[in-house]
């Protein structure tokens, strides 16, 4: 019987099979940040087990509140920093070199096809874009991952999401994943891996695939996943060129993690995106999604462009292309947070940061802060944010606040309009970004 990508990865990593279809898998990487890791570190110390299974497989970053905003967040950073130093964890990204975890770890080449990865962060599913199994876990699972390099999962079933058609200009990966979540609902893929495929995914860049996989958890999925192909190899080449004689050889090796033609899926969703228009959320759940055209004119107070969903260079380029020679509406404030120092630096080189600043955006350092209402962009009670992030839960960006999730293009257009607005009105269809 044929196998899905996740089944092939699990087969290659199974350490133990427990009763009830639960398997323990070996981990290729354990990612850590300063919010969910310190309590694991403290617990390991209290148990007299302050050890790590393999310092080269642990990657750590301070990203949620950075620079620290108070004594408590300073302590979280210090706990992670001291631990990384104590255990000789070389890949630790401290203030100045730190970025949003799900942007910086792929950028540094830490994710490879066929890998198993956990992190104490639900959007870990992002890394499935590389053909890896990557799952968010709680602090206890993270603690065991750090100590022993294993984690337990139910044997994963996969949902096949086959995406065909051609995206119209102005419609992006964010619009695709929002429309998928609208169709299957916030628990439509619970306990399953969402395996994205089809010509639309084949044509996507790695950045777009990361946007797609990032929000798989908003439908309840354990991991998003895309089959590795030449786009994956091209992205990774600078990190793997000593491992393979040619890109073709790398591709052939990674084909080991391509799904079989007769793989068995728990569900299949086939969608054609040819008629898809820009999408936006309207409620407190990520499956409450409407076409932007139905939401135009909705009042907003803040625009936020950033996060592990849409804070990458391509996202900034798209937003900047719409903002060039324009100013944001005096009715709104706008914030852009490039997701990593590398993205920030390249955005500077390309003149994007100047476009944002001339338009009236506040440019912050790379951080997760505003997305979950922890820092650098918290909403007041009753305020509304047009945001490129991934969650619109009640109070997510600040108690009593409302979040409308959308693409960077829609967010940029909304910043200029001062209300939710389709980017279509700001450019001719011929010269879309």
């Amino acid at each position, binding site marked *: 019987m044929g196998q899905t990508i996740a089944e092939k990865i699990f087969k290659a990593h199974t350490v133990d099979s427990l*009763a009830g279809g639960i398997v*323990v898998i070996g981990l290729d990487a354990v990612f850590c940040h300063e919010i969910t890791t310190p309590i694991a570190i403290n617990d390991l110390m209290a148990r007299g087990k302050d050890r790590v299974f393999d310092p080269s497989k642990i990657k750590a970053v301070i990203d949620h509140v950075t620079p620290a905003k108070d004594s408590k967040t300073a*302590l979280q950073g210090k706990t992670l920093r001291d631990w990384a130093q104590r255990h000789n964890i070389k890949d630790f990204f401290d203030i100045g070199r730190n970025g949003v975890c799900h942007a910086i770890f792929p950028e540094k080449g830490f994710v490879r096809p066929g890998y198993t990865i956990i992190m104490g962060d639900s959007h870990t599913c992002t890394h499935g874009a590389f053909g890896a199994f990557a799952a968010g876990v*709680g602090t*206890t699972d993270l603690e065991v991952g750090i100590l022993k390099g294993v984690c337990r999962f139910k044997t994963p079933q996969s949902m096949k999401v086959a995406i065909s058609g051609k995206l119209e200009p102005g419609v992006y990966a964010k619009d695709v994943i929002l429309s998928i979540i609208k169709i299957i609902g*916030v*628990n439509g893929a619970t306990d399953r891996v969402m395996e994205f495929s089809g010509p639309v995914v084949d044509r996507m860049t790695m950045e777009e695939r990361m946007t797609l996989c990032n929000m798989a958890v908003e439908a309840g999925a*354990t991991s998003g996943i895309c089959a590795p192909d030449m786009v994956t190899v091209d992205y990774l080449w600078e990190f793997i060129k000593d491992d393979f004689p040619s890109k073709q050889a790398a591709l052939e090796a990674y084909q080991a993690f391509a799904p079989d033609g007769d793989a068995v899926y728990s569900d299949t969703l086939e969608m054609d995106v040819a008629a898809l228009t820009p999408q936006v959320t309207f409620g407190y*759940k990520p499956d409450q999604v409407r076409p932007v055209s139905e939401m135009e004119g909705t009042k907003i107070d803040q625009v936020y462009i950033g996060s592990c969903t849409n804070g990458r260079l391509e996202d900034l380029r798209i937003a900047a292309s719409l903002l060039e020679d324009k100013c944001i509406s005096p009715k709104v404030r706008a914030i852009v947070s490039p997701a990593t120092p590398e993205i920030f630096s390249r955005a500077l080189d390309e003149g994007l940061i100047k476009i944002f600043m001339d338009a009236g955006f506040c440019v912050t350092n790379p951080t997760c802060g505003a997305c979950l209402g922890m820092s650098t962009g918290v909403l007041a009670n009753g305020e509304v944010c047009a945001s490129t992030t991934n969650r619109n*839960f009640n109070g997510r960006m600040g108690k009593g606040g409302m979040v409308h999730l959308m693409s960077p293009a829609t967010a940029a257009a909304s910043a200029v309009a001062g209300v939710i607005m389709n980017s279509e009105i700001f450019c001719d269809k011929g010269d879309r970004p």
Partner: protein
Amino acid sequence: MKTFNGRVLFLDRSDINTDEIIPAKYLTESAKEALQPYLLEDLSLSGFDPTVDIKDRTIVVARTNFGCGSSREHAPWAFEMNNINMVIASGFARIFRQNMFNCGMMAVELDPGTIDHLFKRYGGKETVITTDLDSMLFTVSDDKGAETFPFQVSDFDLAIVRAGGWVDYADKHY
């Protein structure tokens, strides 16, 4: 091992997410105990007042997709610090469910029909649940009588609950 008996807090909603259970602004705490006052602070549920309704409750009954959203184990910890060690629902988000068992707590799934019956028959009334782990039975009772319902939890999850958590098990076996 924790116990799973006591007064029920009915939360008649699906998709209760971890931001509602414990808002992210409290994730700066480095000790679980500090989470105690903030449980369900942002829950969107008509008539629910966390400052009054949580007191002396030890079991939560809710609808489906309970604990969706963030991976924060602070959600089970916030329940634990309020002596709530069990959630009964018609479905759970994967990470929340696993976090509960990892903490030696119970996340028990019942079919939607049974959950609906519990809300209709007991919702809004003073209700007590007692749990028999050996025979996998709940007894639900109010002033009008009692009913017994079977439930299923995997042998492994039960072993973790009895052992008090996953860390020691994994350290011993792997």
